């Protein structure tokens, strides 16, 4: 079976600044890829490139066997199948939590309101947010907001989930709640690419860990290998500082 997502020789720059340099990455179905590395190493940009929020300068991104970096492709068709969660939650403040969750299913996927709401409520229930469904996002705590954002991304049944440092803005107590959702999704077989600073979590759930440095994937390997016996000096140095 071919890979779900295949990135080859990806290059991305903002003006003179090269953000991604010759990045290649293969994601198989049910893989959980964790991207680690210091801020500014290109983790977020890589994720944004994957669901076409950024134009790329060079390289090829193939998803489900087709090239999605082709300018003639309809980005919306790609994004329909990919869920994304942002560091700053990015919930829509003018909609209730439930409406945040049902917006895309109803407007993009053509699901009727009762079914969309039933699915959203089921997920909200599972993640302990059932009593928050009718509230607006600003009334929720950070951890609750981020869980709601995860539910919003899951409501469309994506085949690939992109998580961009989703616990970076949360206090440690709340990080656990959010990560347990991600963990259960990983166990259920969801394919995910996760940019994270939670090394313990990465080690636990990742099927593969990529260390990004200065826009390159400097090293990729099984979590045990990366965290115990990194090949690159730069990786060792990074891990020494964060662990």
């Amino acid at each position: 079976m071919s890979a779900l997502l295949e990135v080859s020789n990806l290059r991305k720059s903002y003006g003179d600044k090269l953000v991604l340099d010759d990045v290649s990455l293969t994601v198989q179905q049910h893989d959980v890829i964790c991207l680690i590395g210091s801020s500014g190493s290109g983790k977020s940009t890589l994720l944004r490139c994957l669901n076409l929020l950024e134009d790329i300068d060079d390289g090829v991104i193939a998803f489900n066997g087709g090239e999605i970096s082709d300018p003639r492709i309809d980005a919306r068709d790609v994004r329909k199948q990919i869920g994304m969660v942002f560091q700053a939650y990015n919930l829509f403040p003018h909609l209730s939590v439930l409406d945040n969750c049902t917006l895309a299913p109803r407007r993009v996927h053509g699901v009727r309101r009762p079914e969309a709401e039933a699915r959203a409520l089921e997920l909200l229930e599972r993640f302990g947010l059932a009593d928050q469904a009718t509230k607006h996002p600003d009334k929720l705590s950070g951890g609750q907001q981020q869980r709601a954002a995860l539910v919003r991304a899951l409501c469309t049944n994506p085949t690939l989930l992109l998580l961009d440092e989703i616990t970076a803005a949360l206090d440690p107590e709340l990080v656990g709640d959010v990560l347990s959702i991600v963990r259960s999704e990983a166990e259920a077989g969801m394919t995910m690419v996760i940019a994270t600073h939670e090394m313990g979590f990465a080690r636990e759930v990742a099927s593969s860990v990529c260390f990004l440095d200065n826009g390159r994937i400097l090293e990729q390997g099984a979590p045990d290998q990366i965290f115990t016996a990194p090949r690159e000096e730069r990786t060792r140095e990074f891990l020494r500082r964060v662990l």
Partner: protein
Amino acid sequence: MSPSSSDRGVSWTPSDRELERARARRSIHQRGVVLSTVVTVVVLAALVVGVTSAPGWDRFREFFLSWPDAKAAFPDIAKGFWINVKMFLIAEPLILLLGGLVAITRGSVSPWLTPARFLAVIYTDLFRGVPTILVVYVLALGIPTLQLQGMTTSLFWLGTIALVLSYGAYVAEVIRSGIESIHPSQVASAEALGLSRTQTMRFVVLPQGVRRVVPPLLNDFVSLQKDTALVGTVAVFESLYVAADYGNYNFNFTPFLVTAAFFVALTVPLARITDWLGRRAMERERGSR
């Protein structure tokens, strides 16, 4: 293995796939340009044909598109239009000031300012409710009748004051909506830094709020530029009054179109400048992408 970071950016040559994509992007772009050109030409042609083939087109040309009349009326209209411009230039800063003060007053919490808040509410309710032309009449005809000591009887000034009062109420509400659109977290972080309520308003809330409502503010100011013509109804010789005057004497209405051209020539550049200012501010804050 990896090239040094200094020559990383320079040494890049696009791959064949990228070149192919660039070609595809160009052709998509070109198709867009061709389509927009065709659509524009077709719509404009249809409009021109539609208007010129109207049964009364020849009479219309005679009454509204007479070049000699346009030339004859031009100097007086230009002189009249200068009055419009003066009125507008004087009124606009006053309106911003009045509108801003009223908006801030309505958002204040100090118990000392309760009567001011009360007044501000009455003012906006009243002057937004009354048609501008009525305010002009009441001021221009009523104030001189009162024979107040030291009060001007110049119709130009009374008309300008009427515009300021009327538009001040609109602008106050626009600015207030801008102030209220700023997220409470901004106020919280300003107060956390130790800023007073006034400082918070002045340095944090107002700059963001006003920027957000620049398009509707511009809308009001374009509207104001046009409404300076209302002062013509109390016999101030501004451009519309001049044009009507010419039409009544010479039975030709071309000067109306000349006046219209003057107004458009004033408002269009203003709109472009505001767009440009807004875009520049946005790029500074969010990066130019």
